[in-house]
């Protein structure tokens, strides 16, 4: 008997890959189920910029034929449908970056991460909505329409990888790539109740991924389970001659390591009062997740966390200078094709003295060393919030409205995520329940360099044992 459509789309990435590999279900059936669901959800959530249905079905049929003819599988994701933020280039296809400027721009080459997923057998269903040029954390988009939260379309999807989080949460795809320059994977993952992994700077190639700020951009994964994140990370991680910042360190067997037990893990917890005001519901989510991790055998260790604001601002300075350089020509020739928010957010970068920009880059070494030798010295991971407040409605954080409250919400949204981009450390957003409005709550794990497996191991144990209610988004 065939599987029901919701059982197909509700499966994990690892689970559906196993079923396709063992011919329990065909790639075409899975791809059609995802496309059907996209048709149902797209009108209310607007998480896709483009759906490539025919191309995806053709590739699915190829995958099925290959398997039938010789039993050969292309790789661990043979015939599995995914979709990615519209910031990853594929030769000859449009990659808008969520912008008007690139509405018809066709990429000259293919991103390394897409090539690696192709080689692993994955299918790309289309490109996912995102903030214009990955510039904002809310998921608003003037040019392609706002992306809306999977749990309630009147709420913020989070950004800039808004479509990636919503498509994964709503079971339209099994996993998605995103990019994170200041929280652009972790914030939308948190807002939509999925996992969002920002790997160590240098772990995953940025070649062929649209830049937001070169020095702070990280390519990462949004998925529904830690095992799924590990599976994708194992495919996309590793040295790439196309990106000189990638590391030659060996890529470990993430799916195996992500099953390493938690007992003995030292989880550093800072005094939350130093982080500024936190919403009571967010605090309760943090406390209950810590209690669950302690019950699993982790040791909670108080740590001293310095003021994160200087790190945030140093990252901002680097970013504004790099954005000013990248956007200079378009800002001069096509200013009207930018939203006012993106344009005005870039302007400060034109006035910052070059030596200070270089000093900011040079400071990363000392700041990272200091952070590792103090805050992280006696712990394996750090446990932090993602956002200081609950998921806001789209109206509450609408940048175009010009309201002070919206500006205040947006200003603090990356307070706990952007500093981690400056340090280049791996970080993972982990769902941990729901607030009174029924929107997801999450916590953030920050690890030592290249300790992605440990973060995923903790998240795996947490998701297997945590007792918060599990709710699947409904239309």
């Amino acid at each position: 008997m065939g599987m029901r459509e919701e059982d197909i789309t509700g499966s994990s990435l690892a689970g559906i890959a196993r079923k396709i590999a063992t011919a329990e279900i065909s790639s075409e059936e899975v791809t059609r189920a995802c496309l059907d669901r996209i048709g149902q959800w797209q009108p209310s959530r607007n998480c896709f910029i483009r759906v490539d249905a025919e191309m995806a079905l053709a590739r699915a049929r190829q995958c099925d034929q290959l398997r039938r003819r010789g039993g050969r599988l292309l790789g661990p994701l043979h015939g599995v449908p995914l979709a990615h933020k519209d910031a990853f280039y594929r030769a000859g296809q449009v990659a808008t970056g969520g912008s008007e400027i690139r509405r018809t721009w066709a990429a000259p080459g293919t991103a390394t991460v897409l090539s690696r997923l192709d080689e692993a057998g994955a299918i790309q269903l289309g490109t996912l909505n995102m903030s214009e040029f990955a510039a904002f954390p809310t998921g608003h988009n003037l040019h392609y329409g706002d992306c809306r939260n999977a749990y309630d379309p009147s709420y913020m999807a989070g950004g800039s990888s808004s479509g990636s989080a919503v498509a994964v949460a709503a079971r339209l795809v099994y996993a998605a790539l995103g990019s994170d320059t200041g929280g652009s994977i972790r914030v939308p993952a948190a807002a939509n109740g999925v996992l969002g992994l920002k790997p160590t700077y240098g772990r995953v190639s940025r070649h062929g991924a649209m830049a937001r700020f070169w020095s702070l951009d990280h390519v990462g994964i949004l998925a529904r389970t830690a095992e799924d994140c590990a599976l994708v990370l194992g495919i996309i991680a590793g040295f790439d001659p196309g990106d000189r910042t990638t590391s030659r360190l060996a890529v470990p067997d993430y799916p195996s390591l992500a099953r390493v037990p938690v007992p003995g893990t030292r989880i550093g917890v800072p005094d939350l009062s130093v982080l500024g005001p936190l919403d009571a519901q967010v605090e309760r989510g943090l406390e209950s997740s810590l209690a669950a991790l302690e019950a699993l055998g982790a040791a909670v260790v108080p740590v001293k966390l310095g003021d994160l604001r200087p790190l945030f601002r140093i990252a901002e300075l680097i970013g504004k200078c790099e954005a000013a350089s990248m956007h200079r020509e378009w800002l001069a020739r096509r200013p009207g094709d930018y939203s006012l928010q993106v344009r005005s957010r870039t302007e400060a970068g034109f006035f910052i003295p070059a030596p200070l920009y270089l000093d900011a880059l040079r400071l990363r070494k000392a700041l990272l060393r200091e952070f590792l030798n103090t805050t992280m010295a006696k712990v394996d991971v750090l446990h932090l919030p993602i956002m200081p407040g609950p998921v806001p409605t789209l109206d509450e954080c609408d940048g175009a409205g010009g309201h002070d409250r919206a500006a205040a919400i947006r200003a603090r949204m990356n307070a706990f995520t952007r500093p981690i981009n400056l340090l280049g450390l791996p970080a993972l957003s982990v769902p941990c329940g729901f607030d009174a409005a029924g929107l997801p709550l999450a916590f953030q794990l920050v690890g030592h360099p290249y300790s992605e497996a440990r973060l995923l191991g903790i998240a795996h144990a947490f998701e297997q044992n945590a007792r918060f209610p599990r709710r699947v988004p409904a239309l």
Partner: protein
Amino acid sequence: MDAPTLQMLAPRVLGHDITLERARELGEEIHLLCDAVAGQLHLLAYDDEPDDFLKILEENGHA
């Protein structure tokens, strides 16, 4: 940089005029960012280079 100077430079640097109020906002923003970097300069040594950051990440790598 004070607001009148920013306003005067805007046409050449940004390619368009800005109001004095916008120049004030920009000035405050730039001041905050530059202060953050200036406040940490004591951590820098002459030989520090931007790419050293990648080496520190690798040297402290925990697989």
